């Protein structure tokens, strides 16, 4: 049997990768959205593992909620992306710095 | 005894009417002038009746009004008056009355708001002098900044933005430190009442830090060297009446606070630091006098002279620390000197700023070099101004002398060198005051390009009344002494008892 810590470490690694994806990516907002999805994935992974480990359904139920919410969130995110593209004709992360200081 | 909430009336009547004037900006000039005049006169009458009802033979607080205000924090709406408060209330009411009279001879845009801010200021000052709950005191103390800030900022001179912000932040900085000290004291005392702070047994370190906080807070307000630099700027930019109220009453708040807070609460630390604080006062007296001499702007000159004169107030107060152990009588003399000096400086500086305002009205310049030979065209005015300048230089027979005399006496009671250095002011204050007179009043002026004209009836009245009171205080100040005497002696005694 694989010890629980392996799962947790894996999810933590995924979480770290997703975060790194957010701040290392300097090209495209779409990649950012993908990183965010990855982040939620890692959390879900975590929740399922722990729920399973604890023998408790709560964790798994939680995941369902998270999935739903994330779906909605992505939808809004993509909508905003479209609006942004209409206004700026670009979705480059580097171009998003009109607001600063 | 006297169950009429006179102190509250003194505070709230002017504030409410002032707010009304500020908000109703369509009020005609004449109407607002009359309203202000009536209100200030009413306040003057009220404060006179307060003085009349004040029992001079008692040393405890009188006219107490004490209502719970913020119960969770134990903050009270606690008003009362003792001799020091009464004398300063009288000064405030008097000066504001004069400002109200003088106002009608000047033209300002949006006059009703202008006068309204002055009324608010008056009420707040009354509050500052009567609040016996430290937070209430602090609220009044801080709120003073707002109307003055606006008065100088809106109706001030060219460089007013810099001056106002400097003045506001400077004083705010001092007072927030003081706020911390007050809160700290209150956590120890379990109450915000100032009198409860007196009973605390503080450790020496605590006292030291509290003293420093108070020193910065009140020292900036008074102002002491080296935190005085806001004052000349504020004065120069302020409109005439603004300068008057600033110099004559607002600075006194600092001295009042020192007497109320520093002396009884932080006695031990005060004794420890008294020498350095006395040096600071002496620097204020001597060094600032030198600086005053170098000024080319009349208002700046008088502003610096204010700092120098307030040096006597701080000297008198700090000498109390110095004298506590060995010469209580001299301590009392010093403290009374400081109080009298406050009142007297209130009158004299007010008069001088009025005078400068009148000159400025004609010549549109406050520089010494642009004004000369005023006496040829305004003989009566020049005579009065010379009188005020003489009073400013501490001429005996005017009120300017009494305070300095007492403070110097007290200084001699501790150390002749301190007394000597303080007495040098006699020479220095004469040198800069008369320099002003020499350059502005006298000299040859045949063209009158400045367009000098003798004062109007209002101005004559204002200056004349000031002359009378300066002389009165200079010749027979016995009544004033009677008012403050018991309070002062009681204060010194209780401090001394608290030590042993």
């Amino acid at each position: 049997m694989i010890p629980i810590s392996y799962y947790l470490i894996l999810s933590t690694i995924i979480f770290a990768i997703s975060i790194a994806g957010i701040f290392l990516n300097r090209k495209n907002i779409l990649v950012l959205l993908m990183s965010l999805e990855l982040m939620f994935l890692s959390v879900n992974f975590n929740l399922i593992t722990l729920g399973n480990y604890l023998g408790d359904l709560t964790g798994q139920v939680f995941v369902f909620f998270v999935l739903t919410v994330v779906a909605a969130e992505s939808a809004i995110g993509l909508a905003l992306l479209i609006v942004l593209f209409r206004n700026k004709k670009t979705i480059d992360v580097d171009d998003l710095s009109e607001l600063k200081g | 005894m006297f169950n009429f909430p006179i102190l509250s009336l003194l505070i709230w009547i002017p504030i409410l009417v002032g707010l009304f004037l500020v908000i109703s900006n369509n009020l005609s000039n004449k109407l607002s002038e009359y309203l202000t005049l009536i209100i200030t006169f009413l306040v003057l009458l009220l404060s006179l009746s307060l003085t009349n009802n004040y029992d001079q033979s008692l040393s405890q607080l009188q006219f107490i009004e004490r209502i719970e205000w913020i119960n969770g924090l134990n903050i009270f709406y606690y008003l009362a008056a003792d001799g020091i408060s009464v004398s300063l209330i009288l000064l405030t009411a008097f000066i504001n009355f004069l400002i109200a009279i003088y106002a009608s001879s000047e033209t300002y845009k949006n006059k009703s708001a202008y006068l309204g801010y002055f009324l608010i200021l008056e009420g707040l000052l009354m509050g500052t002098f009567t609040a016996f709950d430290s937070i209430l005191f602090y609220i009044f103390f801080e709120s003073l900044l707002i109307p003055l800030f606006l008065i100088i900022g809106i109706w001030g001179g060219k460089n007013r933005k810099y001056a106002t912000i400097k003045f506001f932040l400077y004083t705010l900085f001092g007072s927030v430190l003081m706020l911390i000290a007050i809160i700290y004291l209150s956590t120890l005392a379990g109450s915000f009442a100032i009198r409860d702070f007196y009973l605390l047994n503080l450790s020496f370190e605590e006292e030291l830090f509290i003293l420093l906080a108070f020193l910065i807070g009140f020292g900036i307000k008074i102002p002491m060297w080296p935190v005085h630099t806001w004052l000349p700027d504020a004065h120069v930019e302020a409109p005439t009446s603004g300068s008057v109220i600033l110099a004559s009453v607002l600075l006194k708040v600092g001295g009042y606070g020192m007497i109320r807070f520093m002396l009884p609460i932080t006695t031990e630390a005060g004794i420890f630091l008294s020498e350095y604080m006395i040096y600071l006062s002496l620097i204020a007296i001597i060094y600032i006098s030198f600086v005053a001499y170098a000024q080319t702007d009349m208002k700046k000159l008088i502003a610096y002279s204010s700092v120098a004169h307030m040096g006597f107030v701080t000297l008198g107060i700090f000498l109390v620390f110095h004298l506590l152990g060995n010469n209580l009588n001299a301590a009392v003399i010093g403290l009374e000197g400081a109080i009298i000096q406050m009142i007297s400086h209130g009158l004299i500086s007010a008069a001088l700023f009025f005078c400068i305002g009148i000159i400025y009205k004609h010549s549109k310049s406050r520089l010494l070099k642009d004004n000369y030979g005023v006496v040829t065209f305004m003989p009566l005015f020049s005579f009065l101004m010379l009188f005020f300048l003489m009073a400013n230089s501490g001429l005996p027979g005017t009120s300017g002398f009494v305070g300095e005399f007492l403070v110097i006496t007290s200084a001699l009671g501790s150390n002749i060198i301190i007394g000597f250095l303080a007495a040098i002011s006699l020479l220095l204050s004469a040198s800069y005051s008369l320099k002003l007179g020499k350059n502005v009043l006298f000299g040859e002026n045949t063209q009158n390009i400045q367009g000098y004209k003798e004062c109007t009836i209002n101005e004559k009245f204002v200056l004349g009344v000031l002359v009378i009171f300066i002389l009165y205080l200079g010749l027979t100040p016995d009544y004033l002494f009677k008012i403050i005497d018991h309070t002062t002696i009681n204060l010194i005694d209780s401090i001394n008892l608290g030590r042993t």
Partner: protein
Amino acid sequence: MIFNLLFIPEIILSIGVMIIIVIDLFLQSHKGITFKFIQLLLLLSGYYSINGQVSSIYQSYELSEFLNVIKFILLFGSFIIFHYTYKHLKYLNNLKIEYFTISILGLIGTMIMISANSMLMLYLGIELLSLSLYALIGFNKNSSLSSEAAIKYYVLGAMSSGILLFGISLIYGFTGSIIYSDIAEVINATEMNSVEYFGIIFGIVFITASLCFKFGAAPFHMWVPDIYQGSLVSTTTLLSTLPKIAVFIVFLKLYYIPFISMKSMWSDILLFVGMLSIVIGSIFALTQTNIKRLLAYSAISNIGFIILALGIVSNEGIQASLYYTIVYSLTALASFGIITHITCNSHGIEKISDLSGLSQTHPYYAILILITMLSSAGIPPMIGFHAKLIVITALIDSSYIILSVIVVIMTVISAYYYLKIIKTIYFDSREDLISVYSNDSLILSLNSISLLILGIFPYYLFDLSSYLIGLLFAISF
């Protein structure tokens, strides 16, 4: 029947939103009527929330008197915000009823957040709020600033949600539950080994970071000025009030009930975060020229005060933080509200210099801004002073003398930029057109003047906050 009564404020709003969407389809040209309906909805909901039921039959959803009052405050706040918003949008020719429906959804989100007694409900509430805010911030479709702000908030907000979820998963894993009371039991009662201990602590840190992000506290504050600047003033008004109150209540419920035995750990974090927010809020704002950015930094420093008070962990501290939150919300409402009322060259106010000479053209509004700014700066006799006073008193009571000294010095520094605004209004002269598009400024006046009136009679608010705290906690710390 009982069921109906229990959730009635939320239900009214939810159903109302649906009805509004439908109505709006038919009454496209009579938006005024729809707006009246929305206001009615809020009032109704408000009425029921203040008279709401108290029940403990649900584990994960709390219905208490305390929350009823808070909900009322939220609804009342939104009522005022909607009032300002309606006029503002109408003036900008951008009046869409969707704005209000989305706002109401966000409002429901805040109500869920504060009522949540489990991590799941908390998450759902936060997400509902966040999703509405994403839409609101990007509402001004034609403005590139607005969409930039929306994307920024979206990415960072989603990230913070991720962090929150990660924290929740850790808490869940090491305590075995997502219900507050169960978590509290586990944390308070059992002896933990170090792995569990660190697991929980790490979870708390993650949650703290996320909540601080939502709060806009430094160092998680960087979105605040950008988003405030980019979005409509009305959105900013909403952003600076409702979510803050809700997050504050979440802080209170989470940290002072389940996490209380970890206080030695999180109190340090909160104190640090609070301190840093105050410093950053004061220093960064000094040289701002955009008024919305400036007010954003001012919000950061105010939030700093709230967090600082929370971090003290004492009765006074809690009370101070609640008091401060209420005062801050009032002040923020007033300051942004005034900006929604004023336009310069027929645009909204952007630069501080747009306000110059307001005192000559609109003296009344100038006085309102004066009061508001002085209150923000904490100058007596405005209510802002009492708020800061109480926080500092709480700090000194718990002997954080040095902290309090830094705090007051920062107050002086921040006073500078408030004075700068006053200076612009009163001392500068006018160059171009400035206008106030509303004659009906009753609510705004009440809002601003209440800052002065409450400052003179602060005990009503003080009593209210101590009453509320009494409702929330029977015990003392």
